[in-house]
């Protein structure tokens, strides 16, 4: 069924009895051309673009839990293209352009809202760095506007500009940045891939990867063995475990990132605000909750929950930036597993096993990448050549030291990002 305003009306006046499940629940077949391990945002978008752009539909997505139960349904939904480095900036630019056509492409309302993102700065040096970043963004074809303190005050009158620790000098405004409904992105891609014939198989954990003569031949799962000509690993925080099934050791450490949401409030924060000096960022969801977060807890974790020190740190930063936030009651907090790479940038590459493909290292920034990553990964799997927007995301850049993309300039080592 095609979704439309007309459908909502027609279903409404006939008692909403005509709606059907958005995708099938097929049993796994014995063999596929391509098996995608992981039904998160990146796995589902890979399936969609394989089917749509390369006509490959003898494809299965194997998900150990339910679709969208991983970080794709746990993130704070910020979508932006304000990266600095060659290699990153064209990729996120490509991804943002896909976001801008996504709802029409998927026939699904992902509630993509380009409400504008503002990165605050607090010193002359930081302003100069943001001027440089803004120019890089403009050269890339994206948008950036430098706001002085009064410019910020017009958009964000409720911030504390005089705070003694980090007085606000201004901000870099990225009008095309914003948010999207995270679950809807997973569901929209799932439905679109399913409609083109991709099998989405839930409650199906991959427990082994079969390799014969240096070539991948299929996978072992909790729902039986499945043969495949090509296998793609897209499991985010679980990348090390799944890659180990193929005998690989990855440059990845899994860490916990927490997020927080308040009770629903009337519209008060109209943009996405990033307060890097305090390790704090915030936006308001369409339901009214203030959604905010901060930094990693900074220890390895698979618990999908964090500890109090970072929760307190984030709350303190929020109070420093916008004292009014103290009046809102916090409703929930949670955590997700982040696949941290040494330089903080991702990997989309062939694995050193014939027919095996690897997509990981998204750190805490992989939601905005969902369209671009799936699009470029599908290209790699289908053609065995990297997509030009993602050709810098090589696995061997750590080993060789060539092409590292240390966006924050902190170094290419674990625990620095």
């Amino acid at each position, binding site marked *: 069924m095609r979704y439309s305003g007309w459908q909502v009306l027609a279903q409404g006046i006939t008692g909403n009895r005509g709606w059907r499940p958005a995708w099938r629940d097929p049993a796994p077949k014995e063999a596929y051309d391509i098996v995608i391990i992981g039904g998160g945002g990146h796995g589902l978008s890979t399936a969609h673009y394989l089917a749509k752009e390369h006509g490959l539909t003898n494809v299965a997505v194997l998900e150990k839990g339910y679709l969208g139960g991983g970080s794709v349904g746990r993130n704070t939904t910020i979508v932006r293209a304000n990266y600095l480095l060659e290699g990153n900036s064209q990729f996120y630019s490509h991804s943002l352009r896909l976001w801008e056509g996504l709802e029409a492409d998927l026939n699904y309302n992902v509630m993509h809202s380009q409400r504008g993102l503002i990165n605050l700065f607090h010193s002359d040096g930081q302003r100069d760095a943001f001027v440089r970043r803004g120019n890089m963004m403009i050269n890339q074809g994206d948008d950036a506007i430098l706001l002085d303190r009064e410019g910020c005050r017009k958009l964000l009158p409720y911030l504390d500009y005089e705070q003694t620790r980090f007085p606000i000098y201004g901000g870099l405004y990225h009008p095309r940045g914003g948010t999207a409904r995270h679950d809807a992105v997973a569901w929209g891609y799932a439905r679109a891939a399913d409609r083109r014939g991709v099998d989405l198989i839930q409650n199906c954990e991959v427990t082994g990867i079969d390799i014969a003569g240096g070539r991948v031949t299929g996978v072992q799962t909790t729902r039986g063995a499945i043969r495949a000509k090509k296998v793609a690993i897209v499991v985010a925080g679980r990348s090390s475990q799944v890659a180990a099934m193929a005998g690989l050791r990855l440059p990845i450490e899994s860490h916990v990132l927490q997020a927080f949401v308040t009770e629903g409030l009337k519209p008060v924060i109209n943009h996405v605000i990033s307060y890097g000096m305090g390790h704090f960022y915030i936006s308001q969801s369409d339901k009214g909750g203030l959604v905010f977060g901060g930094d990693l807890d*900074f220890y390895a974790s698979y618990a999908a929950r964090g*500890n109090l020190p970072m929760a307190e740190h984030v709350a303190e930063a929020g109070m420093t930036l916008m004292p009014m936030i103290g009046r809102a009651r916090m409703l929930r907090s949670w955590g997700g597993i982040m696949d941290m790479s*040494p330089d903080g940038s991702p990997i989309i590459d062939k694995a050193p096993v014939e027919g095996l493909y690897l997509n990981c290292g998204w750190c805490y920034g992989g939601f905005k990448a969902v369209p671009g990553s799936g699009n470029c990964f599908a290209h790699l799997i289908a053609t065995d050549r990297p997509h030009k927007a993602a050709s810098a995301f090589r696995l061997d850049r750590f*080993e060789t030291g060539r092409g590292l993309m240390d966006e924050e300039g902190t170094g290419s080592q*674990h625990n620095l990002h």
Partner: protein
Amino acid sequence: MLIPCPVCGPRDSREFTCKGHAVTLARPQADAPPEAWDAYLHLRDNPAGPTRELWHHNAGCTAWLVVERNTVTHAVTGARLAGEVAAR
């Protein structure tokens, strides 16, 4: 998390900085092949379960510790002075 520092006793994790997996105790020789340095600097087992990490008690006795911890439950099961572990 409470970290049982052998010098100071059980102390709040706020007093510590985690440096990452204790693999970093086994630094390759200067003339080791590049693969050994790549493994040391970048590649990780990244275990889901028991792990060994280096923690620095920077707001306490300033000792480096090897902490045994579970990455799935966050349970801390032991800590020893890194100097003693490395000397063995």
